[in-house]
Each structure stands twice: as C-alpha cells, then as structure tokens.
C-alpha cells in the first residue's frame, strides 16, 4: 500500500484506451465497474476529441456481483459488435474486474464474433499506463501483423503515437517530412490513425521508426524478430538528435542523408547575443524517459544550460536514465512520487524546471519557472497551432517554449540595474507574463529559513534581497553550501561575496 496524492501515470487500462482511441475501426470492451467511465473525459476534454473513445464498459454494480457479471460482459461484447461494427476488438479488465476473475478473453472468444478479438492481460496492481499502452499495441501487432510483401520503394512505419500523447499529433507530420525528404515513404503510422487492417500491412515496410519507446518498444522488437525489420534507436527531438536520426535512417536504408534545414532557426537563436543570458542556467529535467533524454541533450549542447538534475517517473527506463545522469555528472531521480521530485527541486534550486504539468505546479509553489516537456498532459498541451517537438520545427518550438518562462535577456539586465526602482523591481516578475506590477512594499515576505547550521546576519540577508529573484535561490544555496564547507556558522555580507567569488565561472 502506498499513499499517493498525484500520479504521473494512470492504470494500465488507460494505456490501452490511449491505443484504442488513437486508432480507427478498433473497439475496446472493458470489464469495469460503474465510475471507470471517467476515463472518457480525458480524451473528450483534455484532447478535445469530438467523438467518444471507442470503449464499451460493462459498468457492473454491487447487485451484479451476486448474479452473473460474466454474462454482462458477454452481452456488452455482442452489443458493441452490433452497434459499432469494428474491424477488430480488444477485451480486458480494469482493476476491479481483474479481482472477480471473469476471464474476458475466454468469454469473448466463446461468443465467436467474426472479427479478430484480442485479449489483454494488464496487471493493474503491478503496472501502469505506459506499460498498458505498450502491451496493448504489442498484442495488436502480434495478432494482426502477418507477413506482407515489402513495398517497392523504401518505406518505414512510424510507431508509438497514441491518444493523449505529448505533441504526438504534430510529431507525426514532422517525422513524416524528415523521411520524405530522404525519399522514404511512410507505410503505416500506428497506433494513431491506423485501423486494424493497416496493422496487417506493417511488415511491408523496410524498417520501423520507434518514435516513442514508452508505447511501442515491445511491438518494434517483435517486428524486428519476426519480420526482420530494423528499428531506429534515436528519437529525433532536438537538433543533434534529428541529425543523428537522419544518419541512422541513411545507415539502415543506404539512402543519402538528405535534409532540408531551411526552416531550422534554433541554432541561430541560441547563438544570437540575446541568448547570452541563457548561459549556464541551471535546469532540472523530469518527465518520461524519452523526453528527458532528449531534453538533457538539448539543454546542455544546444541551449548552453547546465543540467543540475534529471530523472523520470517510468521505472521501466530506470537503467538508461541512471546511465544518462552519470554522463551529465548528476544523480538520477527515479520516482513516481511527486513529493520526492519536489524535494529534489527544492534542494537543487534550479533556475528553470523542464518537467510535466506536475512540475509546473511544483515550480509555482517554489517560485521557479517551468516549461512542460512531457506527459502527463493537460488541456494546454494540445494547442490549436502546429507545435511539434520532433524534427527541425520541433527544435524551434522547444527553443521558444523553454525561453518563454524566463525573464528575457535585456530585461534581466534592466532588473539588475533598476532593482531598487519602486515599480520596476524584481518582485514585479517578467514583463511578458501578464501579471500586474505591484508596488514594492517595505514588508518583504520572509523567505525559506536558512538551514539550522548557519544563520544569516541581518545585513547579509538584506544584501541577498538585492540579488534579482531569478538567481536569488541559487545565491542563497551557494552561500550556505560555501559557509558549511568553510565551517562558518554566521553569514555576513563578506561571506556572501566570498561565496560569489568562489562559485564565479
């Protein structure tokens, strides 16, 4: 038993729903109690879908438990088939139905529907949403992707995009463009947009693009084993990763690494003088493993940030994320408990958080700006505009997204220059965030107390407040660390500036 307040991932059947809702012509019959239908609103509200997810729930109640829940399930299967006429069906149980052991797979098979019916075994008390999506897609592919004649022209499948994915909708377009520029056709994109009949054509592609390992790795490995299709290991998010991806595709296909970078602005934007202020900003990165891996590389190599800490919530990827962290000289935070993440961020006092909606809340509480880089998603993560993360345009989008929460370059200087000004002071916040500038009051809010071992002398405390807000946390932390290291128990102005000199880059 584990107390959980906010969770990064839903139960595994929600992962199955993400696959089913992304697809066409597939129906999911879910043995589940009344109330589990809440999951529909994730898709209709967060993603603004204009159709109900293709899911029929048995919504059994206590009175059904005494009679025949199995018949209820069989009836739901028959009615769903008649009403929706799907090409294929997936059947399974949510957490409660798992306990009553009605065997949805066996029941559905006994009905003898004239379409493929694929049973799902998703252990609700052990696994979570991403596993559910990965396993569901794998089972669909295993049941439906038989042998197929290879396409004449070089072609690839794009595997991994699902409903409720972080910018999956737009990443597909961007990756399709990358492939087309090299002369590679896209055979099937799946699960998103694919029908079961499309999955039967998967083996016709020459190779697979594994866009999101979280949701499609098992399928990609099975296709490699069974149909000899290699799959790409680089996720093309970030300029460097996109170059590597193109090179990888060139290696697999033997085609020249043709690319059209005419729309790529990120490298110049990062190099232009306005971006000087981004230098060495300390960032904390947290999310799913794929987006964290990409973000770490972009942060250090393409934005000139310092990666102060990183981690992921999906334990399936703990090993690669630990290895990644070692490369960046930090300790990985592998947890699905947001309180642990909050503690890590409070401890590290980064200047920017790259995280999920959860970290956005943490940032709000701690007063640290945050840009969202990964699921779990929120209605804001489905913008009306084209807004990919992958490919060249993705790199542009990421530059804008990450810079936006920060105080802009010249403004940072002005705030430092005029920090004593009564209305242009740092508590007024960044000028482009719409907050009303409040007049400075003499009564400043007490900040977090210093650690027990060191106390701040009044003068030093006052001096610290002259440091602009977006670096004040760092200055406080550095000074305290420096004091502790030196065995100093009282921090004076002197200590503050000694620490500043000590940490000067």
């Amino acid at each position, binding site marked *: *038993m*584990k*107390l*959980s*307040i*906010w*969770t990064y*991932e*839903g*139960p595994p*059947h*929600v992962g199955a729903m993400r696959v089913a809702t992304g697809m066409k012509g597939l129906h999911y019959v879910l043995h589940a*109690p*009344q*109330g*589990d*239908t*809440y*999951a*529909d*609103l*994730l898709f*209709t*509200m967060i993603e*603004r*879908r*204009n*159709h*109900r997810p293709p899911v*029929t*729930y*048995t*919504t*059994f*109640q*206590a009175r*059904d*438990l005494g009679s025949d829940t199995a018949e209820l399930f069989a009836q*739901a299967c028959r*009615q769903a088939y008649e*009403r929706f006429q799907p090409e294929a069906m997936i059947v399974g149980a*949510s*957490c*409660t139905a798992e*306990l*009553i052991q009605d065997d949805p797979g066996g029941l559905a098979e006994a009905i003898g529907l004239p379409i493929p019916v694929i049973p799902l075994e998703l*252990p*609700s*008390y*052990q696994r*979570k949403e991403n596993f559910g999506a990965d396993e569901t897609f794998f089972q669909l592919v295993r049941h439906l992707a038989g042998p197929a004649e290879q396409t004449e022209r070089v072609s690839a499948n794009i595997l991994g995009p699902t409903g409720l994915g972080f910018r999956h909708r737009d990443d597909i377009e961007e990756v399709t463009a990358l492939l087309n520029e090299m002369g590679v056709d896209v055979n099937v994109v799946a699960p998103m947009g694919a029908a079961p009949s499309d999955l039967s054509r998967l083996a016709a592609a020459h190779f697979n693009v594994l866009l999101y390992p979280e949701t499609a790795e098992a399928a990609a490995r099975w296709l490699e084993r069974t149909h000899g299709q290699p799959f790409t290991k680089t996720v093309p998010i970030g300029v460097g990763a996109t170059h590597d991806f193109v090179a990888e595709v060139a290696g697999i296909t033997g085609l020249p690494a043709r690319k059209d970078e005419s729309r790529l602005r990120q490298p110049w934007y990062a190099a232009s003088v306005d971006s000087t202020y981004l230098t060495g900003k300390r960032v904390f990165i947290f999310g799913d493993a794929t987006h964290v891996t990409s973000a770490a590389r972009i942060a250090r190599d393409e934005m000139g940030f310092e990666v102060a800490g990183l981690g992921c919530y999906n334990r399936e990827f703990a090993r690669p994320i630990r290895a990644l962290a070692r490369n960046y000289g930090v300790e990985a935070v592998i947890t699905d408990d947001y309180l642990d993440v909050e503690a890590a961020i409070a401890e590290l006092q980064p200047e920017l958080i790259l995280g999920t*909606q*959860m970290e956005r*809340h943490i940032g*709000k*509480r701690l007063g640290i700006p945050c840009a969202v880089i990964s699921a779990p998603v929120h209605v804001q993560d489905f913008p009306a505009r084209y807004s990919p993360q992958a490919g060249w345009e993705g790199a542009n989008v990421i530059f804008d997204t990450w810079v936006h929460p920060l105080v802009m370059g010249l403004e940072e200087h002005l705030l430092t220059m005029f920090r004593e000004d009564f209305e242009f002071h740092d508590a007024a916040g960044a000028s482009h965030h719409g907050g009303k500038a409040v007049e400075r009051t003499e009564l400043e809010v007490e900040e977090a107390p210093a650690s027990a071992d060191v106390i701040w002398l009044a003068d030093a405390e006052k001096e610290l407040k002259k440091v602009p807000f977006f670096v004040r946390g760092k200055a406080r932390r550095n000074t305290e660390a420096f004091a502790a290291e030196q065995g100093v128990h009282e921090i004076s102005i002197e200590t503050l500036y000694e620490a500043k000199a000590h940490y000067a880059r």
Partner: protein
Amino acid sequence: MTVLAHSAPKKGCSDAPVLKERGQHEVFCGLTGIIWLHRKMQDAFFLVVGSRTCAHLLQSAAGVMIFAEPRFGTAILEEQDLAGLADAHEELDREVAKLLSRRPDIRQVFLVGSCPSEVIKLDLARAAERLSEVHGPRVRVINYSGSGIETTFTQGEDACLAALVPQMPETEARELLIVGALPDVVEDQALSLLERLGVAPVRVLPARSADEMPGVGPNTVFALTQPFLGDTAAALARRGAHHLRASFPFGDMGTTAWLQAIADEFGVGADRFESVTAAPRARARAAIARQRERLAGKRVFFFPDSQLEIPLARFLTEECGMEAVEIGTPFLHRGLVGPDLERIAAGPRISEGQDVDLQLDRARMDRPDLSVCGLGLANPLEAEGLTTKWAIELVFTPVHFYEQAGDLAELFARPLRRRDLLETHPSRALRVEAAE
C-alpha cells in the same frame, strides 16, 4: 409575477411512467464527492483505500490539481495487499500514522472504500474503529464507501454524511438541522435568512470542523439542501429526527417552498415570512427574468448525473419557461424529489439508470436545444451540433437559494448564448456537417 402564474396540474409528473434502463452507465463513482467535501470540512482528510484508477479519477475528474496540497489521497493497493488482508490492515495503520504525523491539523480521517477494497472485502469499519482507538479522541476515524459498485457520483456525499450520523451526540433540543455540503457563502446566506425568520437554533451537517458536530434526537427537525441525501435522511430518521419535505431550494419558487416548510414547522407568521423574503425574492425573480428571455421555449434533455436533475428540471420548466424532453436521473427517490416532480408539467420522459448508447440515440432523435450531460459526452454531442451544459458545474458552483437563482439560470443560458454568438462563425456549418 404573471408569467409564472400558469399553474401546473397538481400531480405534474408524479405518476409519469419511468423508463428504467440497465446498460452502460456513463457516470462518476461516489469518490468524486471528495472533491467538494474536502473543501467543506477543513480539518478532515479523505483517504481512499483503492487502486491507481481511484487516484487517477480524483486527479482527472475536476482538474483539481489547483489545490497544491489537497486533503485527500489514495492508499494504492498493491499485489501483496491482495495476497494477505492482515498485512493490508497493518499497511493501512502505517499509512494513517504517517499521514497524521505529517498533518497535525487533521482531526477527522475518512477511510473511503472503493471498488477493489469492497470486492476483496477489506473491512474498513473495523480499521476505522481500531484507528480511532489509537488516534482518538483528538482524531476521529470514520469509514464510508464511495465505490462505483455501490454509489453513483453524489451518492458519495450521501454515504459520507450517513456515516457521520452515528457520530452525532444525542440531544433533546428542538433544533433545525440543515443537511448537505454547500459552499460557505451559500450556507451563510441560508443561515442568515433563517435567523431573520426567527428560526433558532440552526445547525449544519456537515459541520465545517470536527468540533462543531451537531447533535440529533427526537426533537430535531431537518431539511435537505440536496436531493441525493436519501441514506442520510434515513439515518437521521432512525435517530428520531423529523424530515421536512419540500421542493429543493433552487430559484425563487424552490427556495420559497423550502423556506415555507421550515417557517410552517417553526410557527413563523406570514407577515414575517413576507417581510424577510420579499426583497431577495424580487431580486431572484429579476435575475431569472433576464435569463428567461433566452431559455423560454427551449427544449432541454437531462442525461443522468447528480440526482439534481428533477429539481433542476422543475426550476427550468416552472421558472424559466423551458420544456423538458427527457429527465434522466441515476436514481429516482420519490420520497425526496416528490414535491419537485409534482411541479413539473406532465410531458417529459422520465428515465432512471442508463444505457448510454440508447439514450444518445434518443437525444439525437429529440434534437433538444440544450443537453445537460457529463464531460465524457459534452464535446461529442457538441460536434453533432447539440448544445450542451456540463452537469458537473452544477455541483461545483454556488447555485442554491435566492441570491444564486440568476447564476443558476445563467449556467444554462450561457451555452445557448455562446451558440448564438458563434452561429455566424464561417466554419460552423462545415464543422457540423463533418461531424455528422
């Protein structure tokens, strides 16, 4: 006010046949009530003993992540908890102890049962007793079930309040008890009206804090503010309390009927009643009249959601001039909504329970001007060109009593106003066509 003078036949929908349906229910489970209950009882913590699905529901249902440090959480059952129930109890004790050490402000802990905890028969009543001994008297531990197999959406509040009834001290005092979790601002308005009517003392269930728990006994008279509190009413009756039956306090007429029942019971004179209610009634009527222009003559279809459907249909038909096409409710409790049912003019289809696909077929046939439905159905219906009102707002927003009557009408008028505003949108025709 002459527009409202047309009197509905006395029996209204009282004897209307009820279409009972038993198919897929597109409704929340009772856990959802925690979202408003934990804001109401500020020294209470709601600990759901359930699965990851329960935790996911709570965080998804209302976008409640705005509450940075919520007073609810889920003790997520894991594989080993299912294997040995004895261990599950130990684990639960440990989690509660940890929670109380971290949150010393908590005085009441609700152990909330869920579908999985009910199915594995985890005895939370026993756990609550045991934990009350350990952490009492300072902290009271109470259990109730919010599981989907036993409760539908607002029934979770009913189960919670019913579980509080045995905790209420015995009293012989003649008191009025107002039952139902209302936003503080609305509760204060009600209390102020009752005070001016000279009704005293008035107590409230649920109380805002553990120390204010009201008493109950044979001289207690209670009035419900919500139509979904059937079990709570029964539990109070078992303690000897007397239920004042009336229309629910929505709009001008509902509020007046509700207050009148109390005034009659407590011997408030007609003059005093008139002088206290005249001004707020006039304000409510004026506010409703402004929205009535848009609502009158429009056809409304209720999908089952919160059990507020019958009283709200009463308000919309009787006071706003709307026509009800179908009034779906998860559970029709005639003992409680009878007075509202009587005041709805005969005509609408009354349905209880749900088979969502069949009901959607009926809505498509009826093509109502406004469909009141859950969040899972709203966008799909909008895409089919049917204007919708999210039902969940009706339980999250202050809508009771005179001063909110205009707001309540406006909640239904706004989607219609928006539809009219976007009517001229150049892509509208295209969008509706594409969805069909």
